[in-house]
Each structure stands twice: as C-alpha cells, then as structure tokens.
C-alpha cells in the first residue's frame, strides 16, 4: 500500500536526484578541503592574506568563480520551478478545464485516465461532495446543500459513487468512512464549524485547510482500490490527534 501519490513520487525522485548531486558536490568538496588543507605546522602558517590584528585583511575573491556559482544554481532553481509548475497547475486545476471537465450529469462517469509518466489524472467530469470539520471529528456528506456556485446537481449520487459509513479504527475509535469509487474524480467542498482544520488524505498526498466562514476546495482523483487514512493537520485543540477518517475506494 503506497503512502504517497504517483504525482508526488515523480517529483520526489527528481528532487532526490538533484539533492544527491548538489549534496555530493558540496560534501565532497568539504571533505576534500577539510583533509587536504589541514595545517601541517601548527601555528606557523604562511600569512597569505596579511592577517594582522586591527587591519582589514586583503580581499580574497575570484569573480569568475562567484559568477559561476551564482548562475549555475540559478539555472537549477529555474529548472526545478519549471518542473513543479505543471503539477501545481494540475493540482489546482479549475473546474471546467481540460483536466477536470464540468460537473457530472446523472449517470455520467469521470472515466479517469492516469498518466504514469507525470502522475496526472485527467477526468471527463467530477462529482461534488462535502466534508465538514469541527472539533474534533470529520463528517462527510455525499449530497450536500451547497448552493448554485458550487454545484448544479439536482439528483443524489448513487450509493456506488459515494456512501458514508463508519468504522472502528484502532486507537482513534469510531470514525466516519467515505466510500468512493475508483476511476472517479470528486470535488471536495469544505468548511469548518469552528476553528481551522485540515484533512490530509495520505494516499493522495493532498491536503487543504478548512476554514470557518469560507469554503475551500480540493480534488480527489481516485485511481485504484485502496483504503487510506485521513488525518487532521492543522492544530485545532485538545483532540486534534484523534480527529481521523477513512477513505475507502472500491472498484
């Protein structure tokens, strides 16, 4: 059971590669210099830069080197930003865009397509569901009363697409479960009844704060059968640690 989403894994792998390169270069340099420039004769060292108390020492610089290690990291940074851009756009795709489509009509399916090379999941349409956070439990609603700006739906989602149940989870107690279908994409509309919370859908590697007095949204593109935990990740008081839920995805 993977703990992170493929989208995350692809970015992670790329970043790890560059981290190893940069880290290796830096630490290699550090270890090399730490050994090869050890003092051989204790305190009697050649005073290359004319170090004397009360005298500002001679400048020690090399413009070409300094430009090099300004420009090269800058290029790397631009590259890393560039490869992070598309995932960013995908994660916060607008409803109605190519990646997400419009809201599903009755009987329509999202027909999710998973692209293994990027980790993106494209859907033809999406279903709107709701999660509410309050101290200290989550509640799901498959057929929320949200108003026109969020959903145009005038029918209830079938039980196959979305169902709410509960389950005893070791340590957390009796917690709500949302049963979703693999291959479908859901738009989660969220709000809090009291303070700020944040549901972390572990396997989807995604989270977004839920706030009082405002609605926030998050995409849940389901691709495979799995069961994953949802944890609260914005400190909300006493039982913050025990505020959990389960996402159960069936085929």
């Amino acid at each position: 059971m993977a703990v992170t989403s493929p989208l995350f894994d692809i970015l992670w792998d790329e970043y790890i590669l560059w981290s190893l390169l940069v880290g290796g270069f830096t630490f290699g340099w550090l270890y090399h210099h730490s050994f090869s420039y050890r003092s051989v004769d204790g305190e009697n060292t050649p005073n290359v830069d004319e170090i004397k108390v009360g005298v500002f020492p001679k400048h020690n610089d090399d413009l070409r080197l300094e430009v090099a290690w300004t420009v090269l990291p800058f290029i790397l940074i631009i590259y890393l930003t560039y490869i992070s851009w598309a995932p960013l756009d995908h994660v916060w795709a607008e409803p109605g865009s190519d990646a997400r489509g419009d809201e599903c009509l009755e009987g329509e399916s999202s027909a999710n397509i998973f692209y293994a090379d990027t980790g993106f999941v494209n859907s033809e349409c999406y279903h709107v569901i709701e999660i509410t956070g309050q101290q200290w439990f989550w509640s799901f609603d498959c057929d929320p009363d949200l108003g026109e700006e969020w959903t145009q739906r005038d029918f209830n989602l079938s039980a196959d697409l979305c169902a709410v149940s509960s389950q005893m989870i070791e340590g957390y107690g009796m917690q709500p479960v949302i049963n979703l279908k693999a291959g479908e994409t859901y738009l989660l509309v969220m709000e809090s009844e009291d303070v700020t919370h944040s549901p972390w859908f572990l396997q989807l590697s995604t989270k977004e704060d839920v706030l009082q007095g405002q609605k926030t949204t998050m995409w849940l593109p389901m691709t495979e059968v799995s069961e994953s935990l949802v944890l609260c990740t914005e400190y909300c008081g006493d039982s913050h640690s025990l505020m959990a839920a389960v996402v159960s995805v069936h085929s």
Partner: protein
Amino acid sequence: MNREKIATRTLVIFVVLLIGMIAVPSATSLPTGVAGVKDLGCNCHGAVPSDSVVPTLEGLPETYNYSEVYILNIGFSGGPADPSNINQGGFNLWVSDGTVSPSDASVQSWNPNEVSHTDAGNDQTAWTVEWTAPANDRNVEFILHTNSVNGNAGSPEGGTSGDEWNRLSIQISSPVVVLEQANPYTVLTTLIIVSFVLLLIVLTFIFYQNNPDSFDWENFAPWVAGWLTTTDHKRVGTLYFLAGFFFLGIGGIMAILIRIQLMVPGNDFLTQDQYNQFFTLHGTTMIFLAAMPLINGAANWIVPLQIGAPDLALPRLNAMSFWLQPVGAVLIFTGVFSGTGADTGWTGYAPYIVSETAHVGTTMWVAGQILLVASSTLTGINFITTIAVMRAPGMGWMQMPLFTWSILVANLMLFLSIPAFGVGLIQVYLDRVIGTAFYDAASGGDPLLWSHLFWYFGHPEVYVVIVPAFGIISEVIATSARRSVFGYRSMVYAMAGIGVVSFIVYGHHMFTSGMDPTLRFVTMLTTMLVAVPTGIKIFNWLMTMNGGSLVYRTHTLWALGFLVTFTLGGISGMFFPSMAMDLHFHESYFVVAHFHYVLVGGTVFGLFCGVYYWFPKMTGRMLDERLGVLHFLTAFITYNGIFWPMHRLGVWGMARRHHTYFISVDEVRGVDGEVITEAVIGALPPEAAGWNMFITVCAILFFFSNLIMIANIIISLVRGKKAPADPWGGWSFEWMTSSPPPTPSFGRFENGEWHDLPTLTDANEHIANEPSRVGTWFNKLMVADKEEVEN
C-alpha cells in the same frame, strides 16, 4: 547605602511575587469545550454529583491476570429512579487499560476503552460488561458514572431536571507491582526548579571563587545589584547568555518529555492536553527565549568590540531589552504548571487562539510575547544605530567584520517585521481580553489575517536567527583556515539579498490555506530563489578553506559540522516550494526535520561554535579542548540520529502536533484462509515505531551531551588556562583588547569626549572611510547646522 538596601530588598520581594504568579492561573477557568463524560461527569443531568446515588462496580479482582476476561456488574442505588418509570438511569464506564465490551444490547461501546448504556438499556439499574485485562503491567483505573433519572422525559421542564448522578473510581494493580506513572507537570516543575537552583548555586560559587575572603552579604548584595542594574554591553551580553542557556535547557526538557510520549505508539505518558501545551512552549521557548537571547548575547558582547566602540549607542535601553525577556518568560509560562498553559502551537493560529477552547494561559502567552516584541524592537533600534554611527575611524561599511554585518542585516529584518507580529498579538490580546472582533469569524473576522501578519514576521524571523550564525561561521572558518573570507563583498550582498527576499516568501507557510493560486505561484518562485544567495555563501565558505591552513580546534569542528547540517537543512527546504510535494509535507514530520536541521543544525551549532570561539575573549580563560571535541562528537552524532529519520517519518505520514500515532498492520491469513491478525489501518508502517524509539534515545543522549559543554564552561571558569588577547589569530578589533576586555571596552572618556578609540587600517589599497557621493549628500541631509558640530 541603607536606601539601596531597602530598595534592593523591595525589588527582591517584587521578583518573588512575580515568580509566585507562575503557579496561579490568571483567572477562573472557562469550560474547555467538548470532552467526555469521564472528565465532566453526567453534567447534562445536573451540575454536580449527588451523594444519594451510589454506583457499584463488581467483579473486579484486586490484581488482574494478563489478558483474562472478567465479567463486571455495573449498578447503582439511590436517586429518583423508580421501576415504575419508563427510564431509570444510565452509566458510562471508562477504563484506562485493557478493553471493555458489551455483553448484550443494553450496552454500547464508544471505543475500546469506554462503554455506555443504549436507549434500550436505560430502563435498568444494572448492566453487565466484559473487561479483558491488558497483557502487560499497568495500574488500571476504572471510572464509572451512573445517573439516576426521575423518568420525567416528557415533562415541560425537560427530561433532565431532577436527575442525580455520581461517580466511582477504582484502581486495580497488575501482577507485577508497577510504580505510579509520573505526572508530567511534576516532572517539569521539578526539573525547572532544580535547574534554577543549580544556576543560583553556580553563580554563588563563582562569586565565592572570585572573592573567597569576602563571602558575605555586604559584598554579595552589591554584586547582585551590580548585575541587576548593569548597562555595560559585556555584562548584558553575559546575562543574555545565561538566560539563553537556561531556557535552552528548559526547552530541551520539554523536548525530552515530548519524545518520551512519542517513544511508542499509543502512549499515554502525556495526555493530549499536556502534549499540546508542551509543544507550544517548546517552540516558543526555543525560538524566543533561547535562540534570540543567545544571538543577542553574542551580539552584545562582540559587536561593540568588533567596531571599536566603547559600548552600544543606548546602554540603558539595551538593559531594558534584556529585562523584558525574563518578565516575558514568566508571563509566557503562566498556567503551564496547573494545566492551563497556552496550547496554541508557537504559531498561535486564529481562530483557535481567540476561541474559548484554548486555555486561559494563552492570554498570558500573548502578553509575554508582546513584551518580547518590545524587547526585540528596542534591540533592533540599538544595534542599527550603533553599527551606523559608532564605527571606529577607518571602518567604512565594507570594512566591517562579517559577524557585525550579519547582526546588522538580522536586526534590520527583525525590527521591520516584528511590529506586524506585535500588532497581531495586540489584536489577539484585545480579542481575548476586552472582546474586540478582529478574529471573530461570526462577526466577519478573518483568520487568514493572523496568518499573514504572523508569517510576514515569522519568515524573516527564522532568517533573523540563522543570519548571525552565518556571521559566526564566516569568522570562524576564515580564522581557522588562516585566510580572509572568500568573496567578502558577495557575502555581504548575499546576506542583504537574503534579508530583502525573506520578506516576500512568507506565503510558503500558507500554501494550503486557501490562498489565491497566483500568490502561491509567486511565493513558490521567490522561495526557490532564496536558495541562490544561501548557496553562494556555502560555496564561499568552502572556497575560504582553499589554499588555507586549517587549524583544528573545537570551534573549527563546529563550523564544519554546521556546513554539513545546514546544507542538509537547506536542501530539504528546497522540497517545500514545489507545491505538489508541499501538499504532502505540510504539517508532517518532514517539516519538523527540515526546520530542526536549520535551527539546531544551523543556529544552535553556529552559537556553540561562537561560544567556543569567543569564550577566551569573554572570560579570559581557555576552554578545555578535549571536552570540546567530546561534546562535538557526541552531540553531532546523536543530533543526526534524532532528526534524520524524521524525514522518512514525515513522508510515511506522521503528522506534526499529534500527541501519538498508530501503526498499520497488514492482515495475516492462516493456511486455511482464516484471519489470524486483523488488518489495522493506522497512519504509519510498523518500522515507524522502531524509528521513533531510536529518535527518543538519541534525544536523551543529545540532551546530556550538551551538559558536557556546560561542565566545560564551569570547569574552565574556575581553573582554565589564562587566555591571551588573540588566541586564534583573528584580525578584527575584539582581538586587540585584553581577555576579558576592560570597561569601557575601548578608549577613555575625558572632558566630555571619547579619546584613544582604535583606527582600522586596510591591507587593500583604497581610500577608507571617505563618504561616497551618496554618503556626502546623506550627511548634509542629516546634520542640521554647523553650530552643533562646532560645540
């Protein structure tokens, strides 16, 4: 002298009064919000328990056997219950260990530790449940609430009037005698008091060592009064170091308590409530009461020495900056010993921080922070003014030592960002105290406003604490390698660049907050960019060693260790601006790992480095090298043992600020397909438990390893070798003075003027200290008339 005595004693009384405030919560507790029957009782049925109801719990042994199942009979007598009524009563049984489950439909289970009656079962006065004893040794507590109702559910007054309830608490013991579990508050109080007493003893001892012949009150009182009233930058610096190290220890104790709680999954050493207070205070203490004072200590001591100034620009204000810190600390800690301390996290997010579910101690936490904001603002004014106007002749801006530059940049960042935090704090304080509505969502208040104000300060703040460490490392590597720092000018521009950019990246703390997506992208870009100046600095340090002659001392080791840990912290930091990854990492242990790498591996290691480097100058004694190397090796290794595994834990799904975690277990089926072990869905894979234990052990070892440094300091103060003026071969002005420096640090004051201030010469050929065209114009702007100058 008599007046002084009375005044001193009055002051002591005040201080004692102030300390007394710690133990007393500031006001009556407000209800803490939703909590189980176990804590509040059946208070829907009446405010207080009633003696007429007698709960009974039978079937419990005095000592249980492992994993044995016991049938328990729960009942009650008394109260208004009557068999002729529809309803007679109910119960709630909570057990601290083992599991309890229903025997029939009259009982239901809330969770494995708690059962209660069902609708069908509320017309009885007796129920049966099964309790399975734990498989290990714990003293088990049973808390039973029973209520006796008068059956008037249909009456106009409502169903709960006239009902009575009571509670019963029974403890049984395990087969093997176990000690009572420690109360974390007792542990914390004891450790803090012990530390404080040890501190006083050491101070008294030092006083005695200095004057063995005159060890009496007549000499002691003026000595203490001298320290309480000092405005000399060196003494204030020493006070900052003392306070900083003291609170570093306190913060460390809290960290150990937190780690003990996280040692095993599902642990109950700390309750949720206690844990929440402890991590809040750990963060607050470490940043505001340990890191900032230690940096201020180094700055106070070294900056005037490095620029050749006799003292800071505003000495009394400097003392005021210091004294606001202990007073602020007292306020911040208010309530923690009685369970009502602040529990908001050091980031204190709205609307939780203004809600009634946050503890009352939160208001005092806010008040203490307001005092610390004032302290930092005054410090900022002082240092910026000092560095701007009191540099010795010959020292232009581009001839200042890099530590001084780092303090200048840090203070500029600090005092421009901290007022925003101060305003946010005042808004929260007023919300909690007089009832303004800044963060009251019901009236239109916006919690994101706090996030913006806080992080506008919060991000520059973390650069404020790392930049001085950069300064220290620059000094130490250069001196150790017997070279001048590589690329002095780009080092200055890099620090200044970091200072400026730090103000426009704070959005990266708010990526999941519902912020506008465009802002999120901009912040991603700027956050990525801040790696460039930081990288320049790291490469410059490495290049400094080039062609040099590295003399290995303890401070050299710490500087090289810093390069390792800070680079690692910086690299892990680069993962966050990639927002699709941040959605996974936010509020997980990956964040904890990153910031501890840069804060401990960066700031604290940098400060340790500075201590070893400047201790001979400050005290006139050399520190023991062998103890220093031992400290470095043990601390460096155990430190990495603590924080490196946290990266992996974060990726696996261990969330921050959670008092405990659970392990997932895969389903195990036997040969015939029957289920041997049921699947348990938990957040973390089983290896996580082992890593957490490993981390806790390393944490305890790390804590003790730092005591080696404390011991080293004390021993060296007493009988360390006498230190020369320049033991390491540095060039800046502090190495010109004696060890320790005289008072005033440079020059002498005669006839209303300072004489004999040092002059900096420059080994490079350019004209020093001539104002540039901009400088001349600026000078004309600032100096009003010639007459003042001539006087």
